[in-house]
């Protein structure tokens, strides 16, 4: 008996955005991940590798190794990241953290500008994670990066106002971060949008967990958000950002060098990060912020295969 292929008739699509002066396109899909047979997936998943503006404190050796010669120089580190094949550079302004160097807005903005000027890929700028401090520094960073069409975050329910205003004024995009709740995510997108920033200048971060550490919660939130987007909910239709590296490299399975029953660390650590990424790729994420060049390479090889046509 012939099979009548079952195709969903989705009515809407994920917003398409273009980052950086280069116009790197993200989003725009009209179906669920990799179901090319029933819709368009015009742009592939993009990766960013993280660069710290000051030496990271909790990088295990295996993660330091690829950046050993540049780990104290964000500009050189960023160039290296581009050589490794990342589509974007994700600069993390940890030096601004009160427990790190408590650097000023001016200081970090200078670094951000220097990095942006040194690379020919779009820039993501991530604050230090302390909401109040990020609310102070990111507007100044946005000003320094005028014209760079950067993706700036993370914007939360507590600090979105100052950052959104600056991102809007200086032509950037924002990453909206809310803790694993589809309603909180909608709400924050709406609040940001009400300040005049169009929805297609927002990407959202549902706060992911790593493989083995709560990955299933964000997996299901992403699936639900994508179905919402495809059935017409514009407030859920922004591209999804997943902080893969930050989570995967907290896991013991990635960090611990000697646990004989888990096998050698090299493949295990890379797989911990790459599996976290591919799992979110099949759930609907668009932008993958990662830490190790080898996991980016593996992830890209996976996406190459997944992007091949499967039309019936």
């Amino acid at each position: 008996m012939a099979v009548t292929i079952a195709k969903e008739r989705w009515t809407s699509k994920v917003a398409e955005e273009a980052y950086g002066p280069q116009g790197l396109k993200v989003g725009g899909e009209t179906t669920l991940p990799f179901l090319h047979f029933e819709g368009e997936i015009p742009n592939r998943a993009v990766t960013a590798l993280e660069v710290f503006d000051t030496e990271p404190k909790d990088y295990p050796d295996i993660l330091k190794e690829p950046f050993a010669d540049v780990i104290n120089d964000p500009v050189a580190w960023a160039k290296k990241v581009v050589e490794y094949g990342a589509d974007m550079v994700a600069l993390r302004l940890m030096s601004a953290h009160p427990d790190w160097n408590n650097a000023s807005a001016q200081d970090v903005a200078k670094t951000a500008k220097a990095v942006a000027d040194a690379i020919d890929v779009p820039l993501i700028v991530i604050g230090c994670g302390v909401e109040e401090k990020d609310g102070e520094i990111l507007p100044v960073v946005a000003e320094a990066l005028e014209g760079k069409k950067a993706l700036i975050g993370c914007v939360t329910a507590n600090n979105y106002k100052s950052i959104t205003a600056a991102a809007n004024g200086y032509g950037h995009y924002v990453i909206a971060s809310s803790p694993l709740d589809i309603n909180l995510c909608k709400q924050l997108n709406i609040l940001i949008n009400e300040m005049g920033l169009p929805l297609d200048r927002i990407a959202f971060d549902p706060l992911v967990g790593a493989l083995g550490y709560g990955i299933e919660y964000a997996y299901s939130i992403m699936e639900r958000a994508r179905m919402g987007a495809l059935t017409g909910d514009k407030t859920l239709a922004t591209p999804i950002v997943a902080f893969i590296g930050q989570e995967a490299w907290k896991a013991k399975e990635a960090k611990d060098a000697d646990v004989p029953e888990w096998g050698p660390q090299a493949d295990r650590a890379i797989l911990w990060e790459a599996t976290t990424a591919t799992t979110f790729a099949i759930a609907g994420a668009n932008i993958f912020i990662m830490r190790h060049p080898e996991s980016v390479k593996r992830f890209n090889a996976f996406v190459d295969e997944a992007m091949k046509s499967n039309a019936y």
Partner: protein
Amino acid sequence: MGLTGLEIFKQLPKKNCKECGQPTCLAFAMQLAAGKASLDACPYVSDAAREALDSASAPPVALVKIGAGEKAFEIGNETVMFRHDKRFEHPTGIAIQVNDNMSADEVKAKVDKINKLVFDRVGQVHEVNMVAVANDSGDAAKFADTVKLVQDNTAYPLLLISGDAAAMEKALDVAGANKPVVYAADAGNYEAMTALAKKYEAPLVVKGSDLNSLAETVEKVVALGYKNLILDSGARELSKVIADQTQIRRQALKLFRPLGYPTIAFANNDDPIMESLYASTYVAKYAGIVVVNSAEPEHILPVITLRLNIYTDPQKPIAVESKVYEILNPGPDSPVLVTTNFSLSYFCIAGDTEAARVPAYIIPVDTDGISVLTAWAAGKFSPESIADTLKKLGIMEKVNHNKIIIPGGVAVLSGQTAELTGCQVLVGPRESAGINSFFKQQWNQ
């Protein structure tokens, strides 16, 4: 699935003879619809009606039992496309492949490795499920010898891979009693393969070259009277497998019967990292069984972990009981560590404490099974709940000191917790992995 009483009634003999124990055929039909009676209770149903009712009441994805004995497992019986709708029922079986071109020593060594792929996670044992044996040599005797060797060395069910019915017959002579999966019946050999599977009541994979040919061959096998089936659409490229797995699940849920069976997917790849990524994807994307080559823990652990995550019940986090846990026979001098009763939180801190070789008491506060920070944000991990738990469990009477250690992530709780409990509250590291150096620096000085 979901026939109404009236629809069932139409198929009954309408004799109202009461032999089924119900006053009327209609009453019996209502009981059937509610799942409270079995059709067997009526001696007069016609074969045609039985067939119609059986297939209408069959689940969208058939349940298939694999293997015999302690390591037997089930696949299928799934009811949804997305785990947020309802939990995925039967975790994907993971099969690791050997072949009959390998020497006996190589086979034994690999099977030994497979037997050791057992991981302890959140207090449960997680392992692979099958050994696949491929007839790569094309030689029937060699195949049977290898199957025997594998069977003698593992308790896991087998997956027998050969397109040659004669070779399959020899292998089943050896292993048939343990209900291995027979791989595979295709358009060319289905009659012989079906007869073999039927003889041993073993699950049979039906293989197509695409979805149409798959559905056609399934119908032919079903016409031969065999329904203990698993599906392989023949796709091997990642994107085609994702598409076919999605289609098969969609078709099954629409009650298109030829595709209403669990599936098998092959992730085999020369590059073990890509293989592992593919296998994880097929675990999430509906495969009943996934086959890989690598038997190395670093490639299998991620797949097993993802399976655990994807197949947990989205409504119910895995929790541990809130009670006193004793790590390495603690005594009155031992530290008291407070955490939540989310399994993962408890097992992180318990595992790292054990690894630090420090005897300790661990006290999980009942937070409805949510993690430290989540429970703190939700107000369930609070000075009050900590104080109540310590009191209820009487833990401070077991020790000769007055100190408790709380997770670094909730340092803000320390002041009020000290007030409420009268204990000295030490703030531990944020990550449980830091507990070893914490003990060295702040406990054992």
